[in-house]
């Protein structure tokens, strides 16, 4: 199956290794990959800041970049959720709206694509240790993807999956929120990290790059021995 890689801006510049892991997992699963050049931002931050007109420009651009795509996969749920909103921007352009709807239905978060579309749960990965999975809000609640990442993790050799006390509680990132209200975001993150420490995993994982960045940032600053990796990195078995 041909898959177009949707690489969010945070992955492009801060976490390219997550993009590489995603491509590796998909290639191993038998997908032929296309990476549309010139990807920047899907418009999500602008939309969340109450700037839908500016977001619409980037939505239009994204739809042009992925004009040839039949299937799109991203290592992020919030960016996928954004693409699934695109159609509402184009009430006045029925052809583009139809295209946005069609592509939204074929744009997947990585674990959702592997489990539900390819029906793969065993990616052949190995990662010894206790691993806690954080349900990102935009993956668990917004997209309803809860069991898919766990199904994938449970097939990783040597991996012991442990549940967090409040697995679906927000990590406090919320995009611009964490920069507008850094102390509130820090307080929410503090509770999330306390939950993580309570189950003493070797590493914590999620399928959303922005939560991963936030949780890892908090663990690092604390000097915690618990590492944070994206789900794709575990599935690629490429961690370190």
């Amino acid at each position, binding site marked *: 199956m041909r898959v177009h890689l949707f*690489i969010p*801006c*945070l992955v*492009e*510049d*801060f976490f*390219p290794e997550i*993009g*590489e892991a995603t*491509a*590796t997992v998909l*290639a*191993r699963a038998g997908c032929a990959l296309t*990476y549309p*050049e*010139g*990807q*920047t*931002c899907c*418009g999500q*931050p*602008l*939309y*969340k*800041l*109450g*700037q*839908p007109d*500016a*977001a619409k*420009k*980037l939505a239009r*651009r994204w739809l042009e970049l992925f004009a040839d795509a039949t299937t799109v996969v991203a290592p992020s749920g919030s960016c996928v959720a954004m693409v699934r909103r695109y159609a509402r921007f184009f009430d006045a352009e029925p052809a583009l709206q139809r295209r946005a709807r069609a592509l939204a239905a074929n744009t997947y978060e990585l674990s959702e694509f592997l489990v539900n579309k390819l029906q793969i749960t065993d990616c052949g990965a190995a990662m010894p240790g206790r691993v806690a999975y954080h349900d990102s*809000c935009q993956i668990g*609640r*917004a997209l309803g993807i809860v069991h898919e990442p766990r199904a994938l993790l449970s097939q990783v050799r040597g991996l012991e999956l442990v549940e967090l006390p409040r697995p*679906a*509680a*927000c990590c*406090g990132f*919320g*995009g611009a*929120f*964490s*920069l*507008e*209200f*850094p*102390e*509130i*975001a*820090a*307080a*929410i993150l503090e*509770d999330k990290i306390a939950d993580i420490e309570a189950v003493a995993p070797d590493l914590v994982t999620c399928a959303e790059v922005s939560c991963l*960045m936030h949780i*890892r*940032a908090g663990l*690092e*600053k604390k000097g915690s021995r618990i590492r944070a990796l994206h789900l794709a990195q575990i599935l690629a078995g490429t961690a370190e």
Partner: protein
Amino acid sequence: MQCNTQGFDAAATRACQDGHLREVLRKASTVFQAKRKAGFDTFPEAEAHCRRAREARARTLFRLPELLIELESKVTALGGRVHWATDAAEARAIIVGIADQANVRSVVKGKSMITEEIELNDALMTRGVEVWEADLGEFIIQLANEPPSHIIAPAIHKSRADVAQLFAEKLGETGVDIPELTLVARRFLRERFLAADMGVTGANMAVAATGSLLLLENEGNIRMATTCPKIHVAVMSLEKVVADLDDATAVLQVLPRSATGQKLSAYVSLLSGPRRAAEGDGANEFHLIILDNGRSRILADPLLREALLCVRCGACLNVCPVYRAIGGHSYGWVYPGPIGAILTPLLLPDERTDALFRACTTCGACAAVCPVGVDHPKLLLELRRRHAVTSGSGRASAAALAFAASRPGLFRAAAWVARTFDPDLKRLRRCPGMGRLARYAATRALPRLKTPFSRRWPVLAAALKKGCQNV
């Protein structure tokens, strides 16, 4: 209650650095969530019940004017008096007028958010009327001279030890455990109930078809406040009306479960007019104040009227990560949490309230537990959009980001500059105007800019083509 929404940022920052408050909030949110979950886990066809409740509330909004007129005629026919109040000042004046006319010296109150909204207690007390909050939580915060911090648990920010100390200071007697403390309050309040000339309550619902008022509580204080004094004054915001007892029942199925996990509140009072000749108890006079205070403006707004579906169960507060971190007082007005972040800006259009709807991670936990299907994040985003349009704030930076993101060359060049000269963003966080980034970095390691994926892709693509087993 005085509005202090412009102080949100400072109050919230203070609150989330208050370890004692944070611990109390953590416990409360955990307990409330567990109770709600237990209530819904044992509730057959919960989703269908929530749908029916939403439909009942939607019928209210769809037929609001006619339902209110029907309610007025039914209440009047039962011997009650209906008063229409456009705003808080009118509502206060009406109630003070009723008290003056009957020479009321003391008032007992049932817990109600609406009387907080109209600042009724101060209005009565400045006339020399003694006012006592009779709900335990409200009584506690009245003694502490604080506003409520939660819709259904107004003193949620106080621990048992806080209350014990407060009682010792203000009442001269206290206790250690909760039954003891409750007994102290009960002894004090019992005399006030018996002496009160007037009872004031809010309303959970008002049934148009029967002219009945529906009140929910767990302590019996509302039952006392509506039966002991000779006069009962109920204040309702106009969207609390429901068409008939079927619709009231539909809401009743989900409201206590969402609030406290109870199948039904310990006391459900359905009051239809004042005491009739053959009846042994109840108030001789019944007044119903129907308050607008900005609601009809919300009703006229097709994109935001959904906020009026709210039945004030408080479930959205209990799951909100922001509320859990900062508590109710930070929100600066009567209604905290996700629903407060929507209602306050709508009810107080002349105040600076934008921080309330910006302070949300859009995690969606609120919408997921709302029994009547209010989509809080959707409404908050609409408020952000309108604020951006009317204030113009953020428009230039949004346009700049959209401009740069539409030109990958420019986007990549900017990243290259940052990566080359400031890969750890150490300089950036010290730049003027980047104070918030520095505050972010105080508790979090900033990520490092790396060779971007787009530059790595050709090598990776070649390797993957050669045989992905070797990658």
